[in-house]
């Protein structure tokens, strides 16, 4: 396994014909390898700059299954480091968020600064006077590489990972609709909501990556309750876009996502701002802005543009995932708009949310059915809309017309297989844009 040239994981994904092997949603060995090959090598979303605005602010989260602290250092820089003491491995911070000058380990009292550096310890003289290989400089909390994009903070434990912008590829052009639609930028408000699902993390990730298909049927009750008659896609004015394994499916207009907040002030705010959005981002993106859409930035950062529900699918085992969900707003939006958006997101996309409530059971059962050995051997059909025409040239990335389909999901699994197979980042193919890569 892992020798150069052998494409073991690519065999699980048939991008041409549209099949995915069910084992990737169940197998413990595959999951363990994902932690190594995907999560320990990718840029992972760890938080938003507004969540650690002041020196000493911190929050705790996970990168894969590695517990980490995201911290605003004294010098104003951003640190991301393992939340595990180099002495015996205990966790050094137990709060979800807060502000502190230091993290002190409960076990023997080693203390770390908000850059993760070792400051001192209980009975330090023993270390100084009679200990082997003692070097305070080398005993800090293990650092990750940090990259930011317009307020969003990402980190990776792989020194060889490409720069964040290269990693994003053409996805960044779309991401600006979320984080750069207003000159004041964005902020996360109100903290996190978390819940547990007995599912493989890839099911929710692929769902946001490209699955507009489920909306019309699975969320029918929710959309009817809001006074609609169910989502209907127009394949001729919607598309799926992917680049380097990140995916964005969207209608090309309509702004219907904004109405999910069920708030007059929010709708007014967005409508009034549309000319500004067009000025900032251009006509193409202003049209897409707020349309029915969903997004996954590979591997596990997802959001709904317009509704501005953002979340991470934290992997906890082949059949366990935690949803960590936040609300993103424009910093300059009026307070009533921010509060309405906070309520709007929670009423639709949180464990008690009227739309999210429908999703969990599907993902759990899609995962758990693979306990059956015969079931597990079968392949899942991902051939939908693969013959669709390419999108217009003004849209960057790999674009296919129609938001209903499997083009994006397959691209996500292709990227997954790329990373699972590749010994190093140098072996990972460029999936930015098929046209460009071919040139």
């Amino acid at each position, binding site marked *: 396994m892992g020798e150069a040239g052998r494409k073991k994981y690519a065999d699980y994904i048939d991008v041409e014909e549209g099949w995915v092997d069910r084992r990737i949603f169940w197998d413990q060995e595959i999951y363990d390898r994902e932690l190594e090959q995907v999560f320990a090598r990718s840029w992972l979303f760890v938080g938003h700059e507004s969540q650690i605005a002041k020196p000493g602010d911190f929050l705790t989260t996970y990168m894969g299954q590695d517990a980490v602290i995201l911290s605003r250092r004294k010098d104003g820089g951003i640190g991301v480091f393992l939340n595990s003491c180099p002495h015996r491995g205990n966790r050094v911070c*137990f*709060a*979800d*968020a*807060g*502000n*502190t000058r230091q993290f002190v380990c409960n076990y023997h009292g080693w203390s770390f600064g908000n850059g993760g550096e070792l400051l001192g310890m209980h009975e330090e003289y023993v270390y100084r006077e009679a200990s082997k290989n003692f070097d305070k400089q080398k005993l800090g909390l293990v650092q990750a590489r940090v990259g930011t994009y317009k307020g969003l903070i990402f980190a990776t434990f792989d020194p060889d990972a490409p720069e964040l912008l290269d990693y994003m590829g053409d996805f960044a052009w779309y991401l600006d609709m979320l984080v750069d639609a207003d000159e004041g930028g964005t902020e996360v*408000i*109100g*903290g*996190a*909501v*978390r*819940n*547990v*699902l*007995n*599912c493989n993390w890839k099911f929710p990730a692929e769902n946001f990556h490209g699955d507009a298909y489920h909306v019309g049927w*699975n969320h*029918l*009750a*929710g959309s*009817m*309750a*809001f006074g609609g008659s169910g989502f209907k896609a127009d394949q001729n004015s919607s598309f799926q876009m992917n680049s380097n394994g990140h995916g964005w499916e969207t209608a090309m207009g309509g702004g219907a996502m904004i109405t999910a907040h*069920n708030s007059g002030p929010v709708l007014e705010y967005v409508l009034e701002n549309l000319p500004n959005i067009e000025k900032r981002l251009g006509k193409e993106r202003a049209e897409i802005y707020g349309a029915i859409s969903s997004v996954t930035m590979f591997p596990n950062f997802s959001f709904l543009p317009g509704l501005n529900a953002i979340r991470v699918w934290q992997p906890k085992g082949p059949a366990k995932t*935690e949803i960590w*969900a*936040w*609300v993103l707003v424009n910093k300059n939006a009026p307070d009533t708009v921010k*509060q309405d958006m*906070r*309520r709007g*997101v*929670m*009423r639709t996309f*949180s*464990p*008690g949310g*009227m739309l*999210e*409530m*429908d999703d*969990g*059971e599907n993902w*759990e059962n899609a995962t758990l059915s693979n306990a059956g050995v015969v079931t597990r051997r079968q392949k899942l059909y991902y051939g939908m809309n693969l013959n669709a025409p390419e999108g217009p040239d003004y849209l960057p990335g790999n674009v296919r017309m129609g938001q209903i389909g499997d083009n994006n999901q397959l691209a996500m699994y292709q990227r997954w297989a790329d990373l699972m197979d590749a010994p190093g980042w140098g072996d990972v193919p460029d999936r930015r844009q098929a046209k460009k890569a071919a040139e």
Partner: protein
Amino acid sequence: MTITDSRQPAAAGAPDADLIREVEQFLYREARILDAEELEEWLTMLTDDIHYWMPSIQNRYRKDKQPAFSEETVALFEEDMDSLKIRVRRFYTGFAWPEDPPTRHCHIITNIEVALTDNPDEYRVYSAFLNHRSRLEKDEDWMVGRREDLLRRVGGELKLARRKIVTTQSTVLAKNLSAFL
């Protein structure tokens, strides 16, 4: 954890036994109606200005001045009558897949305390709950917590005007929260 509602100061004087009994019966009846999924009926037990709130809980150090939750933080429920009606409507569309086959609910309500307020028609009521849901073959979800209610007498009948629900879970240990608590 403190969940005291400062908006309704407790008045001097103890509630009499009849009132305590009446409040208990109201809460037990409400629990039974929720168990039976009679959600339209449940809505009639609420005042039109109902505020139904279940904040999400954050772990913070004791020295932290920021509380585990506030009115500004995210909430699992932050509902008024309009949004509750939308939720109930969703339930009755016939397309609410995660409720078909139906969930089996049991709401256990206990630790009921009644306090008078400055308004003779409003009572502050504390209770604890244990909510058990089971579904399909063997799906099981448990949730425990405290509630702080404001009950108001409207035309002689008690109604729920405000509810604050504080669960012990900072991560909801379930795939959804398809239940009123």
